């Protein structure tokens, strides 16, 4: 009875996927920063959140909106982030890397990663309590 309550939902998967996305995104942003003065370089970004428009993250009663494309009907687990060249127009004189945007993205991504990590830890701690049968 108690165990079912814990394992209900795959929100552990949400957090794990989020961590995966954030760590990959870090690399992409770091690449951009490293290449801020590289002639011919094209700034990239890791897109993920945008693909979740149709994938319903709740388990019960998945709802799909008619106007969402097939892309949106994928279940959350099958949605992965991918690296694409950014379409934002920016010119720093050498290429299209906006160093200030990259630095702030680096900061916010780092914070997101920390938040997801913390939430995952808390979740495991709850599970540990359940396994032991008493509060940790």
């Amino acid at each position, binding site marked *: 009875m108690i165990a079912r309550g814990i394992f209900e939902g795959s929100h552990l998967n949400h957090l794990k996927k989020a961590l995966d996305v954030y760590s990959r995104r870090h690399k992409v942003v770091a690449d951009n920063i490293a290449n801020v003065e590289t002639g011919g370089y094209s700034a990239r970004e890791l*897109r993920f*959140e*945008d*693909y*979740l*428009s149709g994938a319903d993250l709740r388990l019960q009663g998945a709802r799909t*909106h008619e*106007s969402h*494309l097939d*892309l*949106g009907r994928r279940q959350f687990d099958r949605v992965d982030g991918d690296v694409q060249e950014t*379409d*934002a127009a920016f010119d720093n004189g050498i290429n299209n890397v*906006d*160093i*200030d*945007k990259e*630095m*702030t993205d680096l*900061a*916010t991504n*780092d*914070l*997101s990663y*920390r*938040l997801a990590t*913390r939430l995952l830890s808390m979740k495991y701690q709850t599970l540990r309590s359940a396994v032991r049968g008493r509060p940790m």
Partner: protein
Amino acid sequence: MSKGLFDAIRISGTGLAGQRTRLDVVSRNLANADTTQTAEGTPYRRQRAVFREVLEQRVRQDRLQRDDQPGGLSRTHPGHLDGLRSFSREDREGVATAVDVAPDASDFRVVYDPGHPDADDDGYLLMPNVDVITEMVDMIAATRAYEANISAVQAAKDMFTQALKI
């Protein structure tokens, strides 16, 4: 993701970009402080960075598709709002800053220097309307403002990290 704090960081980022542009302008002015002949035939005209606030409206995905782009994605530029079909669930508004570089309309300096090749028949010469002292002061101000924005970012990060200890 985290509305308030991440928005704050992003907006600080626009401030950083603005101050950086301001510094570029100062550098350009200083480099050309004595340029009496530009391609247009006039002396170099001082440039200045003009800051203006940008009311952003970011219409989030889920909620947004561009008519001309399947699976289209939201971008922050206000100009992109035209022609968008949106079921916006949340309009995110921030007041960021943007910088325009505009010419300084003040007059060129008239200098008496008959020996200069560009001097007119009376020996007078038009020099750029750049004052080195003004530029240095502006450079320091830009640097300080840049640092201030960095501090703001750091403060937001600190607050976020504190909340993780809840």
